[in-house]
């Protein structure tokens, strides 16, 4: 197999203007409930921007500077927004059965993003440099040690800082990007068949498990 040809085919498909800059959307994908995913992604953008400013100034900044403290506030409120909208988005897609029609991987990547978002936020709480950081570090160590995860040394602020500002956001950003790519490629899950509709070639779940 020619690797270059394979990548050309895949990338041409994935990075087309039609995938990333759609000019129209299906009739059922409108309204506030269809803004929750975008609000989550937007919160991530604000988190990254405020986080980059904070990282550029070092981990003492928000404990000694009023501007640093203000940025920590922006970072704090945007992480609240991130989880708030993420959970609402999760509820919306769950109640929509959004994995139907071959969208299982889209769901999987979304839940994986939530899974990675938790330690990403947790390592951030350890960066506050206050009692909360001290207390959560010593409280979390026992569970992590017990599960054989002692490498993840919550008492080592240097390691936690590296994980929080580079490793975990990179993984999270990648997962969110793949999640969005799949949403764009697979389309937004359609409603369950309406009353009286005979879905041609689809089962009642919307083709998810046709033939099962």
């Amino acid at each position, binding site marked *: 197999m020619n690797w270059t040809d394979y990548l050309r085919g895949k990338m041409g498909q994935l990075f087309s203007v039609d995938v990333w800059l759609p000019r129209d959307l299906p009739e059922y994908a409108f309204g506030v409930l269809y803004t929750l995913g975008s609000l989550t992604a937007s919160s991530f953008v604000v988190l990254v921007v405020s986080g980059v400013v904070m990282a550029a100034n070092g981990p003492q900044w928000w404990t000694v500077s009023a501007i640093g403290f*203000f940025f920590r506030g922006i970072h704090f409120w945007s992480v609240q927004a991130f989880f708030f909208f993420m959970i609402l988005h999760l509820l919306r897609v769950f109640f929509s059965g959004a994995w139907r029609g071959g969208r299982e991987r889209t769901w999987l990547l979304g839940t994986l993003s939530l899974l990675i978002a938790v330690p990403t936020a947790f390592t951030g709480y350890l960066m506050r440099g206050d009692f909360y950081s001290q*207390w959560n570090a010593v409280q979390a160590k026992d569970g992590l040690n017990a*599960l054989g995860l*002692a490498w993840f040394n919550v008492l080592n602020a240097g390691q936690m800082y590296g994980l929080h500002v580079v490793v975990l956001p990179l993984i999270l950003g990648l997962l969110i990007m793949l999640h969005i790519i799949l949403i764009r490629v*697979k389309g937004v899950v359609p409603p369950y068949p309406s009353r009286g509709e005979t879905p041609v070639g689809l089962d009642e779940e919307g083709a998810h498990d046709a033939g099962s």
Partner: protein
Amino acid sequence: MPDPKIDFTHRYKYVPSDFIKHLATTTLVIAVLAVALSAAFREPVRPALKISTVATQNPVLFEKVAMGDLNGTGQIATYGPPYNGGTGSVQSPMQRIVGVIHPVNPKVDFILKPLRMAASLNPSVGAALRVWDAAPAARQQVWASRYQAALAHARTVNGRVVVPHGAYGPVPMMMQGLLELGRSGLMTGALDRSPADYQFDNMNALLFLQGAPLHNAASRLELLGNQWGIIHEENAPYPGPWWMTIVTAIYQIPFISHASSGDAMALAIGMLLFLILMFAPWIPGINRLPHHLGVYRLIWKDYYRDHDQPKPSAEASP
């Protein structure tokens, strides 16, 4: 039959929209919201607990913690992997398999090493250490155990810890030296793990404080595990990390909160619940649950209003 290569969302009507304007708007909304909330409400801060504060405000507690470390009876001295060879806090075979990857010897690292540093500033500490070093291990153990027991009856007089008269060898002098080091604020530096005085790792300072000092402070703020501690944000009206609610809730189950391997159980149950959520599309029953619950009819209310046919007969409904 529809072409299987064409996604079936193409069966639906498409409506013009401005995707980029939509994304720019949501990002602007969040940015403005975060800036406004930070300006209006700032964010929660809880002053850190310093070793110097403990040494100043509660010298007896400070010495009790230090004696646990010196005598090998403290929580960290007996902890086990990943810190040392103890067994006191080993909750699972995985913990043992990982082994000692962050070695800590509280007696040396938390007490004797800082004291040797203090000795260069305080000659009486140096004299006490020389007596300690010259004594056989059994005698050291006797002195330490006697002094540890005596601390149960200790009082603080003019900032000094006073215990009932007894044969404690150099231990009271060592503890007084350590207490002064703690009060000075220099002990945190003495607990540095970096061989190059270039500090990134505050593990030893946190492990020194992790028992009663941090627990007492957390208890006052209602932050203990059985007080839904991890998701609390002090008494201020700030949201905490409420996304940890499920794991924190598991800690409230008496069976788990009282188990010696409670931490491992709570995290493992939390992970199991998460795996169910993650693999919901493949789990029979759960993958059809949204259809049965019918909340989707509210989500797509407008769509069904336009597309539902009147109910002429039962067989037409899905």
